[in-house]
């Protein structure tokens, strides 16, 4: 793994929020991070809030209900649990708790009244979702030990993540007192503390890098702590550096390629050589663009950077463990004693 690695200060965080532009693989990275932090006998919770059932697809399990379930074991006796937060169920939970709604709750939900209440005030949704995440992160067992050593949140994409996390603003939508208001105040305290960090997943492409840099600035401006930048799907660069610029400008020495191939005992038809040359140019243009994107990323933010490789076979459960191992190798860990012995 290249990149600057995982700084020690992030190991004190217990709430790891993972965002990224759509299509950058943030759910995969969140899953790998939950596995990585669970290593060595820890317990982590992986949470999703957008109703996509992305975790179930990633871990190849049936759709998750609104309850915490064990979905994977981590190397060294750890475990990952998962939770798909359902905003309507979360609101009903509150109503049950504070207003004893009884069976009417379900009827109301069927009528669409619960959905109506949550759409009436967009801020309410965010407060409920972040509130549930905070509750999981703060929950303690009878011995006073946190139930989860770390909570990893597969958060909304970069475009929406700051307004999602900046509950202070959402609270303006809500009444100035009452249980949900108190809950929101607690969320603000946790999200704006050292206990939380927001990691941004990106690809080495123009728009994802721009959004990453913008999001990190917005997070900092909102008093939220940016964590690491995780560069995903990094592909190998085969061409020697000096050849990249030349090839990217269309100056590929077809003669040299041909003679090199001939020397290797490959006598290739002209159209094969032509095809290889075109592929080489495309590769070089991409590598060139990636180098520029990386430079913009380095220039635009001083956040620590981790890199994960492109998986040619796509992501399955096995390769998720590989990605987790790479994150561990880069230093991703959480400060908590192992549970494996108990």
């Amino acid at each position: 793994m290249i990149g600057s690695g995982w700084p020690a200060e992030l190991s004190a965080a217990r709430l790891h929020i993972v965002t990224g532009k759509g299509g950058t693989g943030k759910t995969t990275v969140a899953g790998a991070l939950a596995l990585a932090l669970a290593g060595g006998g820890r317990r982590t919770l992986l949470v999703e809030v957008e109703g996509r059932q992305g975790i179930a697809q990633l871990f190849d399990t049936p759709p998750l209900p609104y309850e915490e379930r064990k979905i994977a074991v981590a190397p060294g006796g750890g475990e990952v649990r998962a939770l798909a937060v359902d905003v309507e169920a979360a609101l009903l939970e509150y109503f049950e708790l504070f207003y004893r709604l009884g069976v009417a709750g379900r009827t109301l939900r069927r009528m669409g009244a619960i959905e109506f209440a949550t759409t009436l005030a967009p801020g309410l949704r965010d407060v409920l979702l972040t509130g549930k995440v905070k509750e999981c992160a703060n929950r303690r067992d009878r011995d006073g030990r946190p139930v989860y050593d770390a909570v990893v949140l597969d958060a909304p994409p970069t475009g929406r993540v700051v307004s999602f996390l900046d509950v202070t603003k959402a609270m303006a939508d809500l009444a100035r007192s009452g249980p949900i208001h108190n809950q929101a105040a607690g969320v603000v305290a946790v999200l704006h503390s050292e206990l939380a960090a927001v990691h941004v997943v990106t690809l080495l492409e123009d728009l994802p890098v721009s959004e990453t840099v913008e999001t990190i600035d917005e997070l900092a401006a909102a008093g939220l702590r940016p964590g690491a930048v995780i560069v995903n799907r990094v592909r190998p660069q085969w061409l020697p550096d000096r050849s990249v610029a030349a090839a990217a400008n269309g100056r590929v020495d077809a003669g040299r390629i041909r003679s090199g191939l001939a020397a290797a005992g490959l006598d290739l038809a002209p159209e094969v050589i032509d095809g290889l040359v075109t592929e080489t140019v495309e590769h070089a243009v991409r590598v060139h663009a990636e180098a520029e994107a990386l430079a913009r990323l380095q220039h635009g933010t001083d956040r620590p950077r981790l890199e994960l490789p492109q998986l040619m076979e796509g992501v399955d459960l096995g390769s998720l463990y590989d990605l987790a191992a790479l994150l561990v190798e880069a230093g991703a860990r959480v400060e908590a004693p192992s549970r494996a012995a108990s």
Partner: protein
Amino acid sequence: MVTALDVDALLDDPRTAIVVCCGSGGVGKTTTSAALALRAAERGRRAVVLTIDPAKRLAQALGLEALGNEPGRVPGAGAHDGELHAMMLDMRRTFDEMVQTHTTPDRAATILANPFYQTISTSFSGTQEYMAMEKLGQLAATGSWDLIVVDTPPSRSALDFLDAPQRMSTFLDGRMIRLLSSPARAGGRGLRKIVGAGFTLFARAVSTILGGQLLADASAFVQAFDTMFGGFRERATATYSLLRSPGTAFVVVASPEPDALREAAYFVDRLSAERMPLAGLVLNRTHPVLAPLSATRARAAADSVRGAPLAAAVLRLHADRCDLADREERLLSRFTGAHPGVPVTRVPVVAADVTDLDGLRGIGRECAAALEHGAALTSAEGV
């Protein structure tokens, strides 16, 4: 075997009046929409493209920066009497204008000034989709276009686009807000009997959580909106039936990634359930193999090349590309296996962002090239 999507036949057919490009976020819907509209314009049709949130450089290429909420002609685009016009959806303005057309100036002013209207018109999750539909309806009603190409909003799910108008209607029809603001009077006895005292509790809980002011604003908004709601719903219904008419063709755009193709599959199923006309799938940003040399042979050769680092690099990057192309074809065949008969066209990735009309022309050409290529060089066997 994959059926080829005949893009030119679709664009040339005078019966094709609307093309809707849909798909999950980040797959290149906006660029594809613009490329299809441009191609139609250069094949002699009077085309307009309704884009939602184009990247800056694409907007520049279409001359969208100076435009308001109406289409403007794109200079340098069009041939054989065809023209290309383009516009970018201004969600808030479309909503404002709709309110103004459907009610008296006084009432419109009341609605626009309501704080709750600000929330609905800017941050309600279905507003963008609804306004895109409204704008499509307006463009179609003018009768001045041969072809309207619509880009759909960048929602997380392609299906949001079809569901938003319904969700928004339910939200605005006032039943819920009346229930919440005065549960004792509204809703009818039948409903109250079912939900019983629970509802009164619920209404009180909601008002405790949200605050009385928000409910009061919402209630005032819905009351003012009530008079125009009939017209509102009629419009939505009309647009929905427009989408089901034979002149409409849905083009599903996906990148060769599992998530995007899964969304595409959901969407294809949904279109068929709604009996909406699907033209086919644009598989965007593929990496076709350009030289018939297998990955295994290329890697073996790269290992044996000595003193020719460039040739070895070329062989290795070719081998990677074969693997990638294989993976993409496997993902595609999983899709076509479950949805046989959906015509497909593949658009190879372009290294740089599209910044001008020529870039769009290139993409249009690739979209239309499925027939020539057939099942060409998709596998790296041979040699």
